[in-house]
């Protein structure tokens, strides 16, 4: 299965999806106008990845800022990951944020409340 690499821009994050290592990274800021269009290849990739029944998966969200349209897409991504977890994939999801950034911490907490899959808050000092 192919890896997916989307390079960072001033408006969109770097996304690295590595099938072999089972590592997924989202890093930077995300404020595309059409967030569902931007994240479409990510969904497709995760769907394919899920169908390979991976044994484990490590996911790192390291976002400085995202708009509300992206918040919905992140919800949908976590939803997919949760399904994968229920199908038996071992999963670690880390939510990194600047230790002083309460807004990003709270956004992470909100996802924690909405999902049963384990999401770990990782303050960066």
């Amino acid at each position: 299965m192919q890896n997916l690499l989307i390079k960072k821009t001033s408006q969109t994050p770097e996304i690295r999806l590595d099938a072999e290592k089972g590592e997924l990274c989202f890093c930077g800021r995300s404020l595309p106008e059409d967030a569902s269009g931007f994240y479409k290849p990510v969904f497709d990739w995760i769907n394919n990845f899920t169908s390979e029944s991976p044994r484990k998966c490590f996911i790192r969200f390291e976002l400085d800022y995202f708009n509300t349209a992206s918040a919905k897409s992140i919800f949908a991504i976590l939803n997919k990951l949760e399904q994968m977890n229920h199908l038996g994939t071992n999963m670690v999801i880390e939510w990194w944020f600047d230790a002083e950034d309460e807004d990003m911490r709270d956004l992470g907490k909100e996802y924690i409340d909405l999902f049963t899959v384990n999401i770990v808050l990782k303050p960066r000092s």
Partner: protein
Amino acid sequence: METKKPSFQELVYNFHETIRPLDVKLIYEGEINHEIMKVFTSLTENGLRSEEFPGQKKVFNVMVECLQNISRHADPVDGIKQENIGHGIFLISNNEKELTIVTGNILKKDKESFLIEKIDKINSLGKDELRDYYKTVLKDNSISEKGGAGLGFIDIARKTGNKLTYSFYPIDENYSFFIMSAKIDK
């Protein structure tokens, strides 16, 4: 043609005189699209950086949501070309006490009651209730046809911690001018 020129000059002069005593840092009237949003947000980011204002990221956040609201939802008046969708006014005022972001755009009258209901509801909620409301809308899978997630106003209210102020001015029987302001305390 001869008489039009001085009237534009007058317009600009009167405009300048009107905003001179105010703390207006930026005012823009025209098409609001993703490129314009990029320019304004980076201008503001750079401008605020020198001020060492800790809420600078909130300002960026609120600006993005306000501008994307206009580019998604401002209605073109009938008879005006479709390309004119997403027209609006954007204003930033900044003083020692607070930073205010004001947007104005044309809307079809039939959207008025929906917006009033939505903003009044948001304004009636406390911090924890807003958080619950955010989560409810976040997990509700429907995204409006224009790609808005219905979260924008909630997010603006949460990030600023202040009530949203709004008004509608009737244009004709079909359209209103919708104005919204968000305040960020310093």
